[in-house]
């Protein structure tokens, strides 16, 4: 029976993820607004920190992840904004899809969007900040685990803030302090990879994995009560 439930949950998750990503592809909001915003943040950092002093290069890991968090926040807000119009939330509730499946699907679609953003921002820092890339294994592992951590927590807090008049201001306040460990971890892991000392980075990958697991569990069990309400 449990096997059956898990399979149904995963099928629902794929269904929701496909729907959300299709929506993003067709509406082109991510393409036309979120990605340009992310690149804009990179340029603004260059204005704030004089590019001639080598600060940008030195601070690349931190600036990169700040840019990911801020532009990712826009993507996460959108993930629930598309549900709040025209009573779509009610339709989703009536659809009979399992709430855990909806949660995983939303998480998956946010994660895919974040990955696209991260690749583009990576190209951005290499081109604009002249950062030399190394330690590929740790870099890729950090990106995957940090993306999982950001999207699992972001989706859970996204639904906590959804459907409220204050959602645009509430989500950053709830989410950013919670994501502080992920910011610290991903930044330190990136530094370790770029400095050629990957052994210092792996504990952070472990910490972020624990974070992601905590939030996946919380999301799978907490999404049901949150969907039932109102």
């Amino acid at each position, binding site marked *: 029976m449990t096997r059956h439930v898990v399979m149904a949950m995963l099928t629902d998750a794929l269904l929701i993820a496909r729907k959300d990503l299709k929506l993003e592809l067709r509406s082109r909001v991510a393409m036309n607004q979120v990605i340009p915003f992310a690149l804009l943040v990179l340029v603004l950092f260059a204005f704030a920190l004089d590019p001639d002093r080598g600060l940008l290069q030195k601070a690349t890991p931190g600036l990169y992840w700040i840019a990911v968090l801020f532009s990712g926040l826009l993507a996460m807000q959108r993930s629930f904004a598309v549900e709040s119009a025209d009573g779509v939330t009610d339709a989703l509730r009536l659809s009979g899809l399992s709430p855990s499946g909806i949660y995983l699907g939303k998480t998956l679609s946010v994660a895919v969007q974040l990955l696209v953003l991260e690749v583009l921002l990576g190209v951005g820092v290499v081109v604009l900040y002249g950062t030399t890339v190394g330690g590929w294994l740790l870099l890729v592992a950090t990106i995957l685990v940090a993306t999982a951590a950001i999207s699992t927590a972001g989706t859970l807090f996204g639904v*906590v803030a959804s459907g409220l008049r204050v959602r645009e201001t509430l989500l950053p306040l*709830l989410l950013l302090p*919670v994501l502080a*460990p992920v910011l*610290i971890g991903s930044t*330190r892991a990136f530094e370790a990879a770029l400095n050629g000392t990957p052994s210092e980075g792996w504990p952070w990958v472990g910490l972020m994995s624990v*974070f992601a697991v905590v939030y996946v569990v*919380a999301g799978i069990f907490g999404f049901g*009560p949150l969907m039932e309400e*109102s």
Partner: protein
Amino acid sequence: MTTETARQVEVTDDGPTSTGSRATMILGIVTLLALAMLVLFGLILSPADENQGDAVRIMYVHVPSATLSYVGCFLTTIGSAVYLWRKSQWWDLVAYAGAEVAALFTAFTLVTGMLWGRPTWGVYWVWDARLTSEAMLMLLLLGYLAVRRLAADYDVRAKRAAIVGLLLVPNVFIVRQSVQWWRTLHQTPTLSLSGAEIQGLMLFSLFIGFIAITLVFVWMVIHRFRVAWLEEQVDAEGLDVAIAERRAEGAVS
């Protein structure tokens, strides 16, 4: 007034009917006595420290309030968990009271810590692991309290706050761990209270501080809970009255 309200919460009658009782009054008197003892021992009888001077007296309130700010977080997470499990308003309000008093104690800890740091280190703030995690705790609590103040139905607000509250302690743990690593990978912790041996009257003053501040904490949580409970009752009654009035209008016309 037989109107059924849409509330899912079990409205029980065993809640408080006023902001205080005889027991809380006695508790309040004991708390005041303990605070007087703390003033006597902390400010008058205990000696100044060799290194820190009179600034050490701040520690008698700073250390206990830091500890209790974490106790408040545990209260919030436990209250949220029981609320999600049993849907009892009582536990939901325990979580609320715990978080609000914890936020107050965290703010107090930060302020007293800065006032101690200025004469001792020469600066108000250092990026020490302990200070940074206390500041992050404050931000996490402010997020929770923001959810509590949402203008939404009781059930919606309580359920969302419970999810945030449930994750409060796990978050505090992960944040503390990461901040610890973040600082210690680069440098050794800058302050260590346990290193300096505290003894005699100073240790006793700290002990009195723990008792007095714990009593203040308990007194505050109880009263915050009672006020929150009464507020909910007034809201529910106001809704009943409003519905009854509208019905009466309908019957007349």
